């Protein structure tokens, strides 16, 4: 038994690091085609999931604030103490990210292009995201916030099929700009008072500086979320990623922005921001509508998924910005399922895309005669659009309820955007299942293998379990 439970958090952070080392040392011959590296990656993620399970049993799910806190004195001048801790919300997100990456690994199992680098960079990213979600103080928060950019950039650059390098550079640049703004803002805050993230709004700053600081923090987090005008760069990068793992990772990045805003703007958000919050909300909703419309009108599935993800990210963001903390766990539980669902969809889309190219067919009716793929795709798309198959269903209802209580008209726009983005997904799925006469003439694509199908079924069961009880892993 582990005596000091807080050490578990360090273990959780150490496991991906060990995974990186083992992957780097793994033998990667032309015969193995990166299988060894991939196996190490998968085992690393599974090992961490088991650790997370233990953590889930160690923490009190009704308790407020960070638990299993562990600290480390990092620097004397300025005096910086790094703090790690966890709560149910961050636990849900970390677990979801692990599942998403596991799905991504399954999605790339047949790729052999620079697999070792892929696994190393993925584990590096995982390490940084875990650190970010466990951060309890200003500096560790920033450190991991910026640190995850490098593996992301490399992954997108190497595996992202981004033909226009300029686009990739712009993507990195504005993310870096956001990180820099956050850094300066946190440094200023730190100079006023060294506090943990939970107490951030207790810091009293001069009026003008406060506006600068909070605006910087706002822009920093928003730069990660595809809110206008940032959506353009994110979309131009995301839609070109055909590697499912990289796509999933690229789409975890907005989560970091949402998480940042959730952590920095709880109930106690500084009053000075009130007028700006309204502007943000308006921009968010306009973005939602525009992106949902573009996604609906666009034939490219990657854009549809991007549009769907963006709309939901903004939904969660707006839910988090409501003047109540009661919805936090709902947002967490909803994101848990949502991230896994969208990852599964992306893995399936990538698989179908590959099969499509292999069999030289169009998207039309691709899912006909492949029952396993069809079942998996249908389940996840239905769950994504909000059918009662995952914890998204009821938790989203409560988020909507919170939004309705705040502003009916605004919420109506939000719901319109959600409907459009969901219809976009449905539209694509039925395009894949369209019974075309031409399909009878061409050979059916190869269905997903039985082991992969079993894996997906396990994920489906996980989703249904999360619907029945989102806190299943704690009981």
């Amino acid at each position: 038994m582990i005596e000091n439970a807080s050490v578990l958090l360090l273990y959780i952070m150490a496991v991906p690091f060990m995974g990186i080392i083992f992957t780097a040392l793994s033998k990667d011959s032309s015969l193995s085609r990166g299988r060894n590296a991939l196996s190490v990656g998968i085992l690393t993620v599974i090992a961490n999931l088991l650790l997370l399970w233990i953590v889930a049993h160690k923490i009190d799910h009704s308790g407020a604030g960070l638990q299993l806190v562990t600290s480390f004195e990092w620097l004397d001048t300025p005096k910086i103490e790094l703090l790690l801790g966890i709560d149910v919300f961050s636990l849900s997100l970390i677990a979801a990210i692990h599942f998403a990456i596991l799905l991504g690994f399954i999605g790339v199992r047949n790729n052999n292009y620079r697999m070792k680098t892929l696994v190393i960079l993925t584990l590096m990213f995982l390490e940084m995201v875990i650190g970010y979600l466990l951060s309890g103080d200003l500096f560790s928060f920033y450190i991991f916030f910026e640190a995850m950019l490098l593996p992301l950039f490399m992954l997108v650059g190497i595996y992202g099929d981004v033909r226009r390098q300029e686009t990739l550079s712009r993507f990195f640049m504005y993310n870096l700009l956001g990180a820099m703004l956050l850094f300066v803002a946190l440094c200023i805050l730190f100079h006023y008072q060294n506090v943990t993230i939970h107490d951030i709004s207790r810091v009293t700053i001069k009026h003008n500086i406060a506006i600068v600081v909070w605006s910087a923090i706002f822009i920093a987090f928003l730069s990660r979320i595809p809110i206008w005008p940032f959506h353009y760069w994110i979309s131009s990068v995301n839609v070109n990623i055909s590697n499912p793992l990289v796509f999933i990772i690229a789409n975890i990045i907005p989560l970091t922005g949402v998480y940042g805003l959730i952590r920095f703007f709880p109930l106690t958000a500084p009053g000075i921001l009130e007028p700006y919050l309204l502007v943000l909300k308006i921009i968010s909703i306009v973005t939602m509508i525009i992106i949902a419309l573009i996604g609906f009108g666009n034939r490219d599935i990657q854009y549809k998924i991007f549009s769907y993800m963006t709309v939901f990210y903004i939904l969660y963001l707006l839910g988090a910005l409501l003047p109540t903390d009661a919805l936090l766990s709902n947002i967490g539980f909803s994101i848990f399922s949502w991230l896994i669902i969208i990852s599964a969809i992306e893995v399936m889309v990538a698989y179908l895309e590959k099969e499509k190219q292999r069999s030289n067919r169009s998207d039309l009716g691709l899912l006909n005669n492949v029952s396993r793929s069809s079942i998996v795709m249908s389940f996840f798309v239905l769950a994504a659009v909000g059918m009662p198959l995952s914890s998204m269903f009821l938790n989203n209802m409560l988020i909507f309820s919170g939004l309705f209580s705040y502003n009916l008209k605004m919420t109506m726009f939000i719901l319109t955007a959600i409907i459009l983005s969901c219809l976009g997904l449905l539209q694509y799925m039925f395009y894949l299942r369209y019974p075309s006469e031409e399909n009878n003439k061409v050979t059916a694509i190869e269905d997903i293998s039985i082991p992969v199908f079993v894996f997906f079924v396990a994920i489906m069961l996980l989703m249904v379990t999360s619907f029945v009880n989102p806190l299943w892993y704690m009981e």
Partner: protein
Amino acid sequence: MFMPRQRLSLIWGCFILVSGAFSVASLAGVYPFPEFSVIWNAVPNLPVIISFHLKNISRFGAIGVIMLSMTVVYYTILSSDEFTKNKLNGLIVLSSVMVISALCAVNYVQLLVAVGVVDVIVYSIINLPEAKRQYIYGNFLADFMLLCILALIFGQQGNINIAGIEEQSQVWRHRDCIAIMLLACIFIKNGTAFFHTAYQKMSELNFARLNFILFAATPLMGLIILQLLKNILMISQYSYPLLKIFAVAGIVWGGLGALVVDNLKRKSVYLSMFFWGLSLSGFAWLPSFSNRRFYLFLIAAFLFNNILMFFSKLRNDELKMSRLCGVLQSAKLTFGICIISTILYALAWSLFAGRNLWLTSVGLTAFSFISAQILSDAFFANNATGKNNQNIRLFMLEIPVLIALVTLIIYNKQQLLNVWPYIAGCVMVWFAIFISRPLQKISGLYCSDFIQKRDVISDIYNFCVLVPIQVLGRGLRLIVDFMFIEKTVIASIKSAIRIMIIIFRRMHNDNAWNYVLFLLTGIIIIAASYYNGVVK
């Protein structure tokens, strides 16, 4: 594994039938019904009580739903064109459980979950991609609206108890919005006029699946929602007029469709629309909504719809009314069953709507013309040369009608004895219509491609909703992404950096004067700083 597949499905089907019969018996009071409730922590800080306590309001509903499901299971067992009987029967059972769960709901969450799960089950039952697509589009919207309504109510009411509506709804905000959204949700689920495209696309499902969906699943859920949340309609002045308009629209459109459509399955869909139109009108105009009578009417309507299946089965699965070629002339037993079904329908409607005479009359008249026209089309044909496929299996299909008739007579013996002259009168009038065929010319429309093939409502949705949204989406991408961001913002930044680089390169070419210039600049900076820092 150890027995042939067909036998397994037979055993499984029979097991369901026995279980269903036991459930009906226990619901009817022969055996004690296991009532229970559990606390469900599906949402943090919001425990939901999942209740299976059958009050009077839901007892008849539960019996009706189970009986309908059992009938469908029975048809499925006998069906030769159903290849996944086990799966279908399982889904039917699950769906019935969820419908009963909705009937028992005392809170929004239970209702919402039941509605959502039924949609997923029905989605699985539909085995045609296009029908699935239309179904899920419509019902996704309906469920989403229901979710929003309940979210909106929960936000104001503070709890999820359905009973709270009556007490608190008067102080709610956005009442019209809530009521209209609720009605829209119900109309989509019911598949009433203008919302029926999803069901139209199901006309290639086999009869058992189709009739189960049309009567025992989604549209029924629509009516259950209406029943449970009826108090919400009170809060808006628009709700009852809207309900009435769409009920009438459903009757008219459904009735007309049932008359003019050639395809038997599409006819079935229109007949169900007609039925749900009648049900909604009953809800709108009747002083009180009797559950017992409604579910009786539901079963009767379901059985009446099945006569179209009989026609098809009699003529080797022919689906065109125009090609039935007087199918009933040589199938006297089936004809008799059809007449019984018609009488059952009319009786059940009269019982259901009996407290409003003009509504009963209108309903009966409309139904008489429709049923007479359908049966006469099947009976009198220009060319009665077709060969029927009358066999023992078809007779087995007709048994439920007889059981229903017997049940109806036993349970409503006294009432029937009181009104038998009226019944006899009605039957005579009906036969008069049947023989005289006043709407015979309508049969000519079976040849009209426009009516038989065009889906006008889908076209309207496509051109008025989908196409504008798609055009708008593409236009926005062009304007917002390409024109504004790419060509304006990014192009400006790029130009600025390019200009800076050009200037920088010019300053740094290998020219001695540039170096001198740099030196002078440095000296000037020092001098200027001196002036600023020391002299000033």
